[in-house]
């Protein structure tokens, strides 16, 4: 209880501090930032890591305030959030940290952060520059809690050569539509399987959003912390699982394993005619395919063609940690502002395939060149713009576990251990139990 009081006082102090702080930061801004070093923790390895390093170095050498950013890779997404947890107990943290989408609710509730909106308001940054459908994910109570940085949506990748051979003119727009063209693709099309559909919690969430349905209660966990799942009551989960099982039973979508990239291998190998994958995978897919066939992209499928919904974004965003140091906070903002500038975002997009999070990046030459080189990426942009903030997706503190539960039960269904109905019931039961536990222990 005592803790609660203290945190209430702290929150109050923080709220007032923002107003007072704005003055301080503004003063701190140009003069006192010289020599400020901020710690930035991220999870970007491989090509993403290279692009990140480039941007950090560019900022360090070019910023006029004398700020130094010390960027450190802290393991994959899971590792980073775990490290942050330990570090915060030990009071040894970062100033800016990159956290994955499903850690959003945890971060909001953590009490360690300064909402990005505060920094934005301080500076008077024009938040409308950020893609509304991306910002929506990280916006709660009309406040942008973290700065979207590497955002992606899943799309449908398809093998154009197979589609041509099969005489299928258009990529299907729904799981039901996939079933309709599957025979043609495996017949004349020469595909080993119609679609390599990885068992991935994110796809399940998207298929729900495409139906316009919610995952959890309390406005999908956005108005208040969720207390239970609703995908069982609203029938959304059962629709997905039934359709999935139909595809599986017919041999159109065999079990290719767990994880977001598990379907990509069969696709790149020329076995499956379609797969689902992140927009950010485009370049690697093209590299793996290496001209063996032409790669087409289309919108992420809905469950049936009658569905009315959209896609939500995934990826990660940047969180400012509250280290009660006005200079560091101001410096953090300067760095974030640099990262979301049109120029940086265009570069980031071209290097990694994540969306430019700001629309003005579309005006940059580097962006235009990139989209000319990879016209498939236009699909991703269009899909994003065709969606709407209301499909931003759920927020839930126990998301990492929920995803695992969903995946486990889809596997059980495919392996004949349970029926779709039983799987949905088991998902709901397990996730509800874990939400209940969490809410009980973390009020």
């Amino acid at each position, binding site marked *: 209880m005592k803790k609660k009081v203290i945190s209430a006082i702290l929150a109050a102090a923080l709220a007032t501090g923002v107003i007072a702080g704005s003055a301080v930061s503004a003063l701190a801004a140009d003069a006192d930032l010289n020599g400020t070093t901020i710690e930035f923790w991220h999870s970007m390895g491989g090509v993403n890591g290279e692009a990140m390093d480039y941007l950090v170095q560019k900022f360090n050498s070019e910023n006029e305030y004398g700020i130094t950013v010390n960027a450190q890779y802290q393991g994959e997404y899971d590792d980073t959030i775990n490290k942050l947890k330990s570090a915060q107990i030990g009071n040894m943290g970062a100033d800016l940290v990159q956290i994955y989408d499903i850690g959003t609710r945890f971060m909001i509730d953590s009490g360690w952060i300064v909402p990005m909106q505060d920094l934005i308001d301080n500076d008077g940054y024009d938040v409308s520059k950020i893609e509304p459908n991306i910002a929506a994910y990280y916006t709660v109570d009309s406040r942008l809690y973290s700065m979207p940085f590497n955002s992606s949506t899943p799309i449908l990748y398809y093998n154009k050569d197979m589609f041509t051979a099969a005489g299928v003119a258009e990529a299907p727009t729904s799981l039901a539509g996939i079933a309709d063209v599957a025979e043609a693709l495996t017949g004349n099309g020469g595909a080993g399987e119609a679609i390599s559909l990885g068992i991935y919690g994110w796809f399940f969430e998207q298929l729900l959003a495409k139906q316009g349905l919610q995952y959890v209660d309390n406005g999908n966990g956005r108005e208040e912390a969720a207390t239970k799942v609703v995908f069982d009551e609203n029938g959304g989960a059962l629709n997905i699982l039934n359709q999935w099982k139909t595809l599986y039973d017919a041999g159109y979508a065999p079990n290719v394993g*767990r994880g977001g990239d598990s379907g990509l291998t069969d696709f790149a190998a020329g076995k499956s005619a379609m797969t689902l994958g992140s927009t950010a995978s485009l370049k690697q897919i093209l590299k793996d395919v290496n001209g063996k066939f032409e790669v087409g992209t289309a919108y992420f499928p809905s469950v049936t063609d009658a569905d009315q919904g959209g896609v939500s974004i995934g990826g990660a965003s940047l969180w400012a940690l509250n280290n009660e140091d006005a200079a560091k906070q101001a410096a953090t903002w300067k760095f974030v502002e640099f990262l979301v500038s049109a120029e940086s975002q265009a570069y980031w997009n071209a290097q990694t395939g994540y969306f430019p999070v700001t629309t003005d990046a579309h005006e940059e030459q580097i962006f235009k060149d990139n989209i000319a080189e990879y016209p498939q990426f236009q699909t991703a942009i269009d899909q994003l713009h065709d969606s709407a903030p209301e499909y931003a997706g759920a927020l839930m503190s126990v998301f990492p*576990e929920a995803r*695992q539960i969903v995946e486990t039960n889809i*596997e059980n269904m*495919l392996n004949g251990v349970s029926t779709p109905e039983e799987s949905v019931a088991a998902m709901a039961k397990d996730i509800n139990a874990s939400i209940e536990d969490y809410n009980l*222990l973390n009020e």
Partner: protein
Amino acid sequence: MKKKPSLLERTRAYGFLLPCILIFAIFLFYPFFKTIFLSLYKTNKMGQAKLFVGIGNYMDLLTSSSFYNSLKVTLIFVVIVVVGSMAIGLLGAVLCNKAFPGIRAFSTAYALPMAIASSSAAMIFKIILHPSVGILNKLTGLNINWVSDPKYALVCVAILTAWLNSGINFLYFSAGLGNIDESIYERASVDGASPIQQFFHLTLPGLSPIMFYTLVVNIIQAFQSFGQVKILTQGGPGESTNLIVYSIYRDAFFNYRFGSAAAQSVILFVIVMILTLVMFKIEKKGVKY
């Protein structure tokens, strides 16, 4: 041994143990007592004790079918891993026991699997076992979904682990074989004992101290493997490879259930402890020093 050791001698003995005990106390016993303490609580998202539940976490586990499933797959896994890795290690060691051309190269080969981290090995096997691009299906002409089919997934992870652990077992057995007096073989040969008889009547008994060591260590280690599960199967399909340690890892780091993870750790600890004690009891009978 006849008279009681003097005070000086005893102090000296403790002195020799001091560095080890100190490190164990700080980095293993102390945190483990904390773990036992936490196992009596429900924890908040930071992993701090929040709600005292006594043996509640244990009761939850002992009534959960998922936990029994974890125990079951762990036991099957341990048996396959221990038998497999010791058999491979022993085979290599016996093959490399007598000097012959190229022995160095071969013994390097047999020890090599241990040079690989479990996560790296899992990455390699992930490609090898992939149903469509994997080399295993291509070479054998099979069409098996190795890691996504509950029939095979556990066996695959276990064989991978047996392979990984076989390297160190090879070294242990080689060291053990080196300590067996060559002359007993010569005598046995003169006696007309066949190589197979020699193996069972001379080699195995001669190896018994190191065999015992290897068995104990292998069992303990097999219980703790999880890097390969994390990369290869994530506990799936279903829960068919949800080894206890993997389940602990998930609960401790992702599921905000440190209390439950702690209780599982304690149970795992007790199981392994009992197994080890049993083995030490048997040792008194079976192992000749």
